């Protein structure tokens, strides 16, 4: 993963940094704020936890008191955060935000029937950026492949296109705003700082949750006038700590087991291939829901409530229910701005199924520029259609546990496409999985990490049956004892953070 910075750039920055002694504080600041292509501000990095977040919180709550100064400070902090990932793409982020802000303002002055070209411009620009940076080579390769049948050779340019981090998330957020203004569901904002604070707010900037402007903007307007809230901070610590532990203690330990094994796919036994598939399902959930919990926690630190993004999806008893619980903010975005735009279920049975399939397939493609993602999306679309065809009755009869297990297995099978770098890799994985060969040994799981993997794998399964972070808060507000536990969990997460590892959804 390039995090928006090419290898040569990293080296150039590194060479610039050598002029500083690493013991000098300015050099530390330099490294922290400008060398982040080498070491980005991950939520699970020390720089983020012990320097960036404390500084930003202190500045926001105690240094700046006025609404305007707080908004400016909030935006600057978000720019530093994003710039630490890829400062070269910061202008792109600012442009995208400003463009949609202006388009919405222009639309407001026009009659509803004359707004269309402006919303089209917004969609074209946002999707254009996304297509160029994310899908250029995907479409080009697909085109070349198709033209090859006609014996036409397409020469591919050798551009090194780097995916700007978070582009899939922030373009969706700002695009939904212009669409809302176009649909007259919302009035445009007049304060650019406020709109920027909404789009660029660092906890949700690089990997969501995809928050709607009407959920966040009014909260930001309120919070910049408020005083520091200890209650919100306590809630924030609850979510942040749980999220950190999910990522660092569970997801990363599972990844340490399955990643090396998957490098040896051809040599795996069926049992190992199955463990890798199940392990990846658990890893992805703990990784991404951990990230979402951390983002929600960070939001609370600023007295902002983010929407729920995961609601124990592996407790689902059908795929339809799964999509109500998994990456909820993306699901509802796709529902409101794609599925409904296509006609939703208003145009008859066949078109409803077509819309479902299209929405899920495009949703799959949103995750990555590869046919494996397309197939993954279509696979889920297919299950949604099947469940809809069968009506309200659940697809699988039997006890709740059995239905839950079957749903989990269906999701896991789909995730094989999601995890595979290519379609042929996915096919090989299925072949090994269903060859039922090789016994029950774990030879291809590295001995050094095998035990921890097994423990974390089992723990991850057990945790599926317990209340999630949202349910815990609903059940009981954190008390003193909870704070002791959180401190202990936070410490253990630190100890296990031996090296920073990126969140899986950052690549999308």
């Amino acid at each position, binding site marked *: 993963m390039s995090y928006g910075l090419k290898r040569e750039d990293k*080296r150039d920055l590194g060479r610039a940094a*050598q002029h500083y002694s690493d013991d000098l504080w300015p050099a*530390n600041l330099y490294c922290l704020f400008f060398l982040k292509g080498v070491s980005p501000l991950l939520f699970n990095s020390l720089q983020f936890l012990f320097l960036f977040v404390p500084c930003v919180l202190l500045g926001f709550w105690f240094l700046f008191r006025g609404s305007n100064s707080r908004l400016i400070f909030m935006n600057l902090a978000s720019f530093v955060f994003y710039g630490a990932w890829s400062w070269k793409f910061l202008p792109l982020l600012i442009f995208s935000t400003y463009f949609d802000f202006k388009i919405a303002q222009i639309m407001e002055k026009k009659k509803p029937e004359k707004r269309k070209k402006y919303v089209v411009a917004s969609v074209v620009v946002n999707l254009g950026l996304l297509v160029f940076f994310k899908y250029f080579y995907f479409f080009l390769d697909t085109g070349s492949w198709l033209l090859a049948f006609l014996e036409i050779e397409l020469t591919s340019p050798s551009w090194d296109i780097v995916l700007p981090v978070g582009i899939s998330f922030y373009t969706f957020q700002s695009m939904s705003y212009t669409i809302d203004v176009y649909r007259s569901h919302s009035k445009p904002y007049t304060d650019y700082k406020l709109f920027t604070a909404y789009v660029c707010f660092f906890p949700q900037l690089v990997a969501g949750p995809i928050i709607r402007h009407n959920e966040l903007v009014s909260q930001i307007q309120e919070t910049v006038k408020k005083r520091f809230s200890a*209650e919100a901070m306590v809630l924030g610590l609850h979510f942040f700590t749980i999220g950190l532990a999910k990522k660092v203690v569970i997801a990363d330990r599972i990844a340490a087991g399955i990643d090396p094994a998957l490098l040896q796919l051809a040599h795996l036994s069926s049992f190992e291939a199955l463990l890798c598939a199940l392990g990846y399902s658990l890893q992805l959930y703990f990784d991404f829901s951990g990230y979402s919990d951390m983002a929600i926690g960070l939001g609370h630190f600023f007295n902002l409530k983010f929407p729920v993004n995961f609601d124990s999806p592996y407790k689902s008893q059908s795929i339809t229910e799964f999509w109500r619980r998994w990456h909820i903010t993306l699901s509802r975005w796709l529902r409101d701005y794609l599925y409904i735009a296509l006609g939703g279920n208003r145009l008859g049975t066949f078109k409803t199924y077509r819309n479902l399939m299209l929405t899920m397939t495009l949703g799959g493609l949103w995750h990555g520029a590869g046919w494996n993602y397309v197939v993954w999306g279509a696979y889920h679309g297919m299950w949604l259609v099947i469940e809809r065809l069968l009506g309200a009755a659940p697809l699988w009869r039997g006890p709740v546990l059995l239905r839950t297990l079957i749903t989990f297995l269906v999701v896991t099978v789909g995730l094989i496409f999601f995890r595979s770098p290519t379609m042929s890799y996915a096919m090989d994985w299925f072949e090994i999985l269903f060859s039922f060969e090789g016994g029950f040994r774990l030879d291809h799981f590295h001995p050094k990490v095998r035990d921890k993997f097994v423990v974390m794998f089992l723990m991850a399964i057990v945790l599926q049956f317990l209340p999630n972070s949202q349910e815990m808060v609903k059940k009981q507000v954190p008390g003193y004892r909870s704070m002791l536990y959180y401190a202990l969990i936070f410490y253990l997460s630190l100890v296990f953070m031996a090296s920073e590892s990126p969140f899986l959804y950052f690549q999308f």
Partner: protein
Amino acid sequence: VNLAKNQLKVFFSFLFFIMSLNALLVLWTDPYRVWNQSWVLKTQTHMNFYLRKFELMPQSHEVESIILGASTSENFVTQDIEAVFGGKAFHLSVAGSQTLGRMTLIRLAQQKFPNLKRVIYISDFYEFNDNYEDYLPPEVIDNDFLNKQRPKLSLEWKHPSWVRHFWQLFSHVVIEKSFKQIGKAISGQEKFIYNKKGDVVAWSEVPAQEISAQSREQLKVLALSQQGDTISPWLSSKIQESVIEYTTGVLKDFQYSQRTLQMYTELQKELTAKSIDLLIVASPWHPKFKKTVFNQYELQKDYEAWLTDLQSLGLSSQTTVWVPTESHPIPTLKPHWRDGVHYSREVSGALLSQLSTSE
């Protein structure tokens, strides 16, 4: 409001308390001898192998040869080196070391051994992965003494020093080592990894072998005898482990490093200026390991570039290079390989004798 404020106080106080305990434990045991304080737990051995090698090196005019590399060269034994080249030898290999760490050790050796005539450098392909070209372990970079000896880095550390120190204090690996230090201190039973000449004790305890010409013959015989032989399941699984370990570790995201080659050239110039011979051995891989790695990863081109670049260094009059080629068959049977990259004392002895004849 007060309840929430008190809860925050509880959280941060308790977190501070546990982190302080953790920090005190690591500072007191100092398993990597990074902090170098007088009040650390006294044990005879510690896990800073660079510092340990330095401590073991005597101030001596008799030592003429040093050998260094990573775990792949720990099977070489000074006794064999002395038999082949004459004079005294000292062993400076440190498992997992990269080029910069080795160069630091060569600088230390030159201070201790004024009559040094030869540096036997066991080169590892992974040194040429540009992800590691500037890598120095915390036990070198965070130890004031060793840090002063290190060559200048082209890429200063990617993390500010406070971050490195923080990792050092709160890494679960270091915490585990801290408890091991306490265990050693309580039991009083310390396991010495190196003998007085820097050899790994386990290897040097193997009875001395007659090497040189005899080993050369042995190599050929073994190379012939392997034809048609199958690799034992034990070795096969060990090779598989090596593949996982290497491809997910030191060979991960491999991009050939010209900077490492430049460091080799600088080392060559530095030694030539002092009339010290440089003998480079490209550490061989087990054929099955090599085949698996080449089949699954696009590394063959870089591997060949590495061998070619090493050979080009051998054009200099004071540098001798040995690279594994078809005319240098490597035995593949179990007694000669521990896994895909580590070989036996016999093989290393044979490599030494081949090196001496080409010198």
